[in-house]
C-alpha cells in the first residue's frame, strides 16, 4: 500500500531524511517511531504530497507521490501534526467544507459526517466554533476530517498528542478498530503507544531507519540494554568480585556505597541472574535492600543506536 524507496530529503544543508526504504502492506497498522527531529513528519509530508523528496521516491495506494499526487491525495486521509483547522468555522461547517472539497455527494457526505462525528465523539461540539473547542476536540476533529472520505490509507502524525489519558485510550481503540478497514501509518514518539496498537514498528533516528519489526522483536532488542540494580550490605570488593564471577554477567558498576553498596549489573541477552544474586546474598549473609530490573527506556535505546551508527560511519 505504501512503498518508500531510497527517500532522501534535504533542507538546505540539513539532511532530514537519509536514504530510507520501507514498505507497508494493505491492512497493516504500522507505527513510525522516533525522537523529535528524527524525520518522521518530513517523511509523512512527502507521502501526503505536501512536499517533494530531494531524491528517491514513494508510492501510496499504487500512485507515485510526485507524478500522480492528485490520485494519492484522493486515496489518503491525513492528520497533520499541528492539526491545522480554520478557527473561525464551526465543527459541522468545517466537516461540510472538507467533504465538499473532496467532492462527496450531498447524501454520502451527510452519512459520512454522522459516522465520523459518532466515531470521534464530536457530537457535543458539533455547533461550536473551532476556536472555542479544546485541544482534544481539535485533535479528534482532525481525525474525523482524515476519515471523512473513507480513505484506503490513513496517515496520522502523532494522533494522540495533546489528549488526556482517557481520550488517549479511546483514540487507540478507535485506531485499532479502523485498522480493520484501512491501512494505517502513524507516527509517535511513545513506545507503549506503538506497542499497543501497531502490527509493526519502524524506528527512525537521525533521518535513518535504525530498526524495524514487530513490537515483540523490538522489545527484545531494547531489553538487551536493560540492567539490574542491586543494593546489598557487605564488603564492596568481595560483592563485586562474586557477582562478576557469575556466568551471564557482562559488567558490574558500583553506583554508590554508603553502608549499602549499590550496583548496576549488565547481563548477556535473554538471561536472568536475579536468582543467583539472591542466593549469593543469602549464602554470604549480605542484607538486600533492593533488586530491580531497570528496563532501558526508548530514549536510551535511541541514544545507543544513534551512537552505534555514528561509530560504524566513522569506521566505515
Amino acid at each position, binding site marked *: 500500500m505504501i512503498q518508500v524507496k531510497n527517500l532522501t530529503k534535504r533542507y538546505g544543508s540539513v539532511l532530514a531524511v537519509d536514504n530510507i526504504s520501507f514498505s507497508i502492506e494493505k491492512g497493516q497498522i504500522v507505527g513510525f517511531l522516533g525522537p523529535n527531529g528524527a524525520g518522521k513528519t518530513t517523511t509523512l509530508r512527502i507521502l501526503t504530497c*505536501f512536499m517533494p523528496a530531494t531524491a528517491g521516491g514513494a508510492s501510496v495506494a499504487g500512485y507515485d507521490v510526485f507524478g500522480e499526487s492528485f490520485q494519492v491525495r484522493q486515496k489518503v486521509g491525513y492528520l*497533520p501534526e499541528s492539526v491545522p483547522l480554520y478557527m473561525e468555522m464551526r465543527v459541522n461547517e468545517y466537516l461540510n467544507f472538507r467533504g465538499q472539497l473532496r467532492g462527496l455527494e450531498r447524501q454520502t457526505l451527510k452519512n459520512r459526517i454522522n459516522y465520523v462525528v459518532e466515531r470521534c465523539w464530536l457530537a457535543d461540539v458539533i455547533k461550536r466554533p473551532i476556536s472555542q473547542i479544546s485541544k482534544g476536540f481539535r485533535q479528534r476533529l482532525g481525525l474525523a476530517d482524515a476519515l471523512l472520505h473513507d480513505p484506503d490509507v490513513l496517515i496520522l502524525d502523532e494522533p494522540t498528542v495533546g489528549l488526556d489519558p482517557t481520550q488517549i485510550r479511546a483514540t487507540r481503540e478507535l485506531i485499532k478498530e479502523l485498522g480493520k478497514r484501512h491501512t494505517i501509518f502513524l507516527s509517535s514518539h511513545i513506545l507503549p503507544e506503538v506497542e499497543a496498537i501497531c502490527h509493526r514498528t519502524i524506528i527512525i533516528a537521525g533521518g535513518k531507519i535504525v530498526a524495524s519489526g514487530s513490537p515483540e522483536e523490538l522489545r527484545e532488542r531494547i531489553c538487551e540494554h536493560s540492567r539490574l540494580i542491586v543494593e546489598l550490605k557487605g564488603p564492596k570488593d568481595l560483592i563485586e568480585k562474586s557477582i562478576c564471577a557469575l556466568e551471564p554477567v557482562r559488567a558490574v558498576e558500583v553506583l554508590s556505597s554508603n553502608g549499602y553498596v549499590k550496583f548496576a549489573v549488565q547481563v548477556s541477552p535473554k538471561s536472568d541472574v536475579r536468582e543467583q544474586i539472591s542466593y549469593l546474598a543469602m549464602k554470604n549473609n549480605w542484607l538486600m535492600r533492593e533488586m530491580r530490573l531497570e528496563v532501558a527506556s526508548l530514549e536510551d535505546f535511541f541514544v545507543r543506536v544513534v551512537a552505534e551508527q555514528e561509530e560504524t560511519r566513522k569506521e566505515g
Partner: protein
Amino acid sequence: MNDRIWVLAKRELAAFFYSPIAYVVAAVFLAVSGIFFAGDVFVPGREAQMRDLFDRQAFMLVFILPMLTMRILAEEFRAGTIESLMTAPVRDYEVIVGKFLGTWFFFAAMLVPTLIYAGMVKGYGQADLGPIVTGYFGLLLLGGLYISVGTLTSSLTKNQVVSAVLAFLVLSIFTFLLWGITNRVTGTWQTVLRTLNVYERFGDFSRGLLDPRHVVFFITVTVGTLFVAVKVLESRRWR
C-alpha cells in the same frame, strides 16, 4: 464552474464575514464614499453624475483591497492550514482562483450599498444611467486586477503585513506613479506608461466609455497575475 473552486470561494467569502478587519475595511470604504458623495457629488446645482465618486473610490481601492487580500494565503501559511488544504485533492489553480473569487465577491458586496447613491443621483438629478453602469463595471474590473495583485503578494509570504505592504507598493506604482509621470515623458516611454496606466483606463469607464481594449487589458492582467500566483504556490511543492 468547477465545484471545488466554488467550494473554496464560498469558504473564503464566509471567512471575511468572520474577520473584524474585513468589517473595518468595508466600513471605512463606505464611510469615506459617503463623505465624498455628500460633500462633492450630491450637491445642489452640480451636474448629476457619479464620476467624481467613482474616481475617488478607485483611488481608495489601492489602500483598501490589500487589506482584504493580505490574509487569504499568508494566513494559511502562518497557521499551517495550507497543509490540510494542499494535501486534499485540489489543484493549485483551484486554490488561487477560489480565493480570488471569494475576495472579489466580498468586494462586490461592499459596492452594493453604494447603489443607494446611484439611486439618489438618478432619482433626484435625472442622471444618465450609462456612465453609472460603466463606472460600476469599471470598478469591478479594477478591483479584480487589484485583488489579483494582492493574491500574488499574499502567496509570497506568511506575514500578512508584508503581504499588504507589498500589494500596496505595487498598486501605488501602477496607479499613482504612472498617473503622475505619464505626461512628463515622451515617445515610446509615454506609450508604454500609458498602456500600463490603470487609473487613466479606469477614467474612461467612469466617464461612460466602454472601450473593449480596456476590458481586455484588465482581464488579461488579472488572469496573468493569478497565473504567476499559481506558479508561486506550485513552487512550494518543488522546493
